[in-house]
């Protein structure tokens, strides 16, 4: 055993914690080795001096301070939080305000509920459809004039067109078709027929009559205006042919608008596309 090991074992030996065979070995060394005897003596002296050191004693201040602090900590723990305090005050307020008997509390609740419903139905505004009001007087006047003109024109056209049978109206258009030089009144009547006549045949005949006057800008403009409003795909396709043939400046835009409109009939859309191709190729 080296010296360090011996010293380490001295402490366990003294404490009686060494196995029997190691204790016997140290006992033997202590009998025979002078160095071990000195080592043992030094250790004993050191341990005796160490164990004799007085235990430091705290002053009474320590206990007093601790007790004071503990009281404060206890008080802090027992003190209700601000939230709890506020809630208890609110509870106390309502406890003082409301009746204590459950039957009376229930009755009071019902009364308050009824009062609330009545007040709500009387005081709250009822939901009404929202009306957009034009605040600009000039715009309002303009809209009223336009509405009046439209109604007037509808009445006139309807009266003129519907007052006579379709065959008579067709005859009138054919007569215009045969006129060599149509005046403005005749052209206006043809355009009105194209736009408003309820018969597809009459409108197609009117359009055919207008072919002779395609070089006139008002005629081209009238057909272009009637094109998006036309309800019959058959007439619309015929109008597209007219528009392409007219080479009017607004033709391309009108046909393009038709192709982009999702409500356009597929046949009409295809005819418009072909018309655009023809316009572009020319």
């Amino acid at each position, binding site marked *: 055993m080296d*010296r*360090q090991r011996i*010293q*380490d074992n001295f*402490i366990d030996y003294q404490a009686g914690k060494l196995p029997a065979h190691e204790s016997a070995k140290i006992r033997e060394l202590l009998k025979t080795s002078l*160095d071990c005897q*000195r*080592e043992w*003596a*030094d*250790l004993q*002296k*050191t*341990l005796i*001096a*160490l*164990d*004799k*050191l*007085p*235990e*430091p*004693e*705290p*002053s009474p*201040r*320590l*206990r007093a*301070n*601790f*007790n004071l*602090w*503990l009281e404060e*900590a*206890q008080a802090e*723990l027992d003190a209700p939080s601000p939230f709890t305090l506020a809630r208890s005050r609110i509870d106390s307020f309502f406890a003082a305000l409301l009746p204590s008997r459950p039957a009376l509390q229930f009755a009071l609740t019902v009364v308050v509920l009824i009062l609330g419903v009545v007040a709500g139905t009387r005081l709250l505004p009822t939901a009404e459809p929202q009306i957009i009001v034009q605040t600009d007087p000039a715009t309002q006047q303009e809209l009223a004039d336009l509405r009046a003109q439209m109604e007037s024109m509808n009445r006139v056209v309807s009266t003129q067109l519907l007052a006579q049978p379709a065959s008579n109206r067709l005859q009138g258009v054919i007569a215009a078709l045969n006129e060599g030089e149509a005046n403005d009144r005749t052209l206006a009547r043809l355009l009105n027929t194209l736009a408003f006549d309820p018969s597809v045949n009459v409108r197609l005949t009117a359009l055919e009559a207008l072919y002779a006057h395609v070089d006139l800008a008002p005629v081209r403009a009238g057909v272009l205006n009637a094109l998006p409003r036309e309800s019959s795909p058959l007439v619309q396709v015929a109008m597209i042919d007219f528009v392409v043939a007219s080479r009017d400046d607004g033709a391309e835009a009108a046909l393009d608008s038709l192709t982009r409109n999702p409500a356009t009939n597929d046949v009409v859309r295809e005819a418009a596309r072909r018309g655009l191709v023809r316009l572009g190729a020319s």
Partner: protein
Amino acid sequence: MDETSDHDLMLAVRAGELGRLGDLFERHHRPLYGFLARLIGDRDAAEDLVQIVFQRILKYRHTYRDEGKFSAWMYHLARRVAADHYRRSARQGDATDPADFDRVSDDGARHAGETAAKRDDLDVMQNALACLPTEQREILILHRFQHLPHQDIARLLNISTGAAKVRVHRALAALRDRFFQLSGRSASA
């Protein structure tokens, strides 16, 4: 006498019975004070540190584990409080750092050796202990004065039991050498 164990008292404190902390204080404040006073070498400061340890026991009561041993946990907190004290003292320039103990020891060794013959062994031992590095002084205090078994010391220092045993022995050897050096006598070695 109250037979309630430290563990049960601490569980009560953890459950909110702060008054039981007073019982723990009565049981442990003296040895705890002895540990801290010997460790930092300042009796007044040690009283403050004892109070801080109990404040931390209350503050961290929810971290106390059911399987834990109260004294080991308390000394664990005490060591951290002492470490905070060392750091605070170092910042303020009046450090009681282990290095300072070594320096004081080396500077005063000759003077101590000259006068040691006139002093009794207890004074010399007091100085010898104070001159040890903090780690060795701490482990000796835990072992010889606080009577913690090697297993608890090992858990406290986060080392193996064997390593704790060796460190105790090494610290004791260093103390013996310092003790005889300050006594003006040479050890047998």
